[in-house]
């Protein structure tokens, strides 16, 4: 009986997915409009609006007396401009504004306006070199989730509108400085210099938050080369004031038709995450102030497999020797005194702000499935698993495109025992429904 229902259901699904017609019908289709007559002069400008409703389910056992659930709404606007002045120089601007409304609050409070000046820079060519000057997003590395070579990521998220690592890289502050790139036939050399511009925290609502990205002098040099067998190798050196030099290397390769693999490694003289969190100076909260340590390693190793053209599965192992081992993590997550609680809150907040790790080992499994069953719905998801305390963060997003944007439903779940990294989070389940338009 059950099998009959399964067969019937399968038939309905197939019927729903397949709308067969003849080859003659297909050949009779004549597209009317063509956009290729539009002039394509390299100038692009777009405005992206997103309206989102967010609902939370809280952990009642942890936060006794609070409401078990709450919600908020958000309106985000992102303006992207690429304006060429001539065939050598262009202006690039990416600027985002987020306005949030929370339950039990007045319709508008200034604290809920978040400004992220992602990029504003001049880009051009001088001789054979490419030059950028202004605020730009210097993204280094090849890993999907945790990217230890991505040294300019710290303190760059002003408005965390999604847990998707790709969205977080889209919505972050760039660093102010100068970048020079020299391209060769099979590789390139990139040098970046970023000056110290401001160290005190900004109070203004629409601040460019220079202190978050430019509180120390920084410089980096990276060299990439294309090797045989679809392999790309990159070496990175990054200097930060007070003698901190991080060395890194990343490599990615294709393995046949449906597999890609990557590895990313970095070594730096950083103290452990708790020391770094507690050494922060309130007068210059984004500067590196912790003492130097002997070099420690961070790494990320990953593999993606595409079993079908519209399905991709990825696996990533992440390690960070500056993070906490099993015993240290257990102590941190079960504070017995107010001072331990303060330490735990400071470390968790620091790790979140710097996109660093609390625990030493994580695994990440991700999957994406586009055009599910021939429909226009696409799904992407990941689970990040703390190997030491077995807690996990799961995220699933379903997206449906429409003519000028898309509608997305994102669900996030934090799982694990109370005294674990993700089990200790305030919001157990989060749901976000968002609609965005591109103009």
């Amino acid at each position, binding site marked *: 009986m059950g099998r009959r229902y399964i067969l019937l259901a399968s038939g309905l699904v197939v019927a729903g997915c397949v709308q067969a017609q003849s*080859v003659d019908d297909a050949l009779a289709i004549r597209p009317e409009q*063509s956009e290729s007559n539009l002039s394509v002069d*390299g100038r692009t400008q777009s405005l*992206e609006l997103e309206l989102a409703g967010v609902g939370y389910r809280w952990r009642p056992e942890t936060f006794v007396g609070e409401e078990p659930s709450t919600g908020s709404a958000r309106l985000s606007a992102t303006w992207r401009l690429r304006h060429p002045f001539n065939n050598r120089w262009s202006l690039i601007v990416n600027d985002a504004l987020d306005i949030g409304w929370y339950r039990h609050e007045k319709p508008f409070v200034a604290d809920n306006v978040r400004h992220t000046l992602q990029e504003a820079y001049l880009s051009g060519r001088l001789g054979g070199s490419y030059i950028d000057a202004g605020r730009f*997003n210097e993204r280094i590395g090849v890993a999907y989730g945790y990217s230890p070579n991505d040294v300019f990521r710290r303190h760059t998220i002003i408005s965390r509108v999604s847990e998707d690592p*790709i969205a977080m890289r889209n919505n972050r502050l760039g660093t102010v400085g100068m970048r020079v790139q020299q391209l060769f036939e099979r590789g390139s050399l990139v040098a970046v210099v970023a000056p110290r511009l401001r160290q005190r925290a900004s109070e203004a609502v629409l601040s460019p938050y220079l202190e978050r990205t430019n509180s120390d002098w920084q410089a980096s040099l990276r060299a990439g080369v294309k090797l045989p067998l679809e392999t790309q190798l990159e070496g990175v050196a990054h200097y930060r004031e007070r003698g901190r030099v991080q060395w890194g290397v990343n490599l990615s390769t*294709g393995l046949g038709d449906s597999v890609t693999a990557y590895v990313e490694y970095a070594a730096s003289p950083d103290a452990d995450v708790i020391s770094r969190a507690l050494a922060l100076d309130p007068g210059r909260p984004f500067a590196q102030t912790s003492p130097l340590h002997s070099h420690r390693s961070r790494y990320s190793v990953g593999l993606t497999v595409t079993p079908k*053209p519209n399905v991709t599965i990825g696996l990533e192992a992440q390690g960070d020797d500056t993070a906490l081992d099993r015993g240290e993590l257990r102590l941190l997550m079960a504070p017995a005194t107010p001072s331990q609680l303060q330490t735990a809150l400071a470390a968790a907040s620091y790790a979140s702000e710097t996109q660093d790790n609390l625990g030493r080992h994580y695994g990440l499994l991700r999957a994406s499935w586009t055009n599910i069953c*021939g429909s*226009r719905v696409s799904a992407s998801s990941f689970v990040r698993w703390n190997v030491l305390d077995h807690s996990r963060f799961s995220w699933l997003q379903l997206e449906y495109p429409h003519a000028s944007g898309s509608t997305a439903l994102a669900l996030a779940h934090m799982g694990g025992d109370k005294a674990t990294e993700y089990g200790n989070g305030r919001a157990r389940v989060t749901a976000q429904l968002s609609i965005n338009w591109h103009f």
Partner: protein
Amino acid sequence: MCCVAPQLFNPLPVHAASPATAPADAEAMNILEASDAIRFPSRSFRMNIDLFEYRGGKQVESLLLTVFARIDPETRAIGNLVRYERPAKDSGKLMLFHGRDLWYYDPASHANIRLSPQQRLIGQAANGDVMATRFASDYTAAHAGEEEVSDGEQVKRECVKLLLGAATPTATYDKIEYWVEKGSYRPVKAKFLSQSGQLLKTAYYRKFETSLDSPRPMEMVIIDGLNAGLVTIMRFSKFSYRTVPVSWMQRDFLPRFQEN
């Protein structure tokens, strides 16, 4: 109608074939070369592709792409840099296809993402469908007789039928049944098959117009092998010869791309 001789298909595993092992014949390869010269120019060029995706006769999506094809003057190997122009949400995104090296670049995140050749980015069309390719570089060809078949305008054409087998790792499909018009060498129809012989999609070439000194198909209709309701129409336009430097064919160039 000529029977398809299964042994003419390359019996080796996917992408393991080589011209030495495939029973190609010189005449078939000459026809394939002549047809390639009609499908795309023989030196580096630029073109636009309007890509329309239909489901059950209704248009559900459209894209405008610009393709910069670099043809190596020595090896004749083709590398492709593809830029999204429309829709607005994808404008400026880039794809680089160079051999089996496949990269996707999003200017919003400045992220270069390595993709596998299998990953599909655009509707029902395979990545290889939006690239300029030379069948003669990637496949061995064998003559399989002559047939009268309907072209994309549903007009009967006298054709030579060729059986193509993947000869390089960069070939998008394992096998292709390919009909070329006798005398003119115009491509008429192609059936793209899996290693097991399953029909993946059928393509019809139509709307021939002279561009860059040769009559070329300005539209390609791709019909899904399992469901004829899934149709992708590719409209080619604005062919022009263009120098495409070899330094464009690498990941680190993508953030620097500017056409002029």
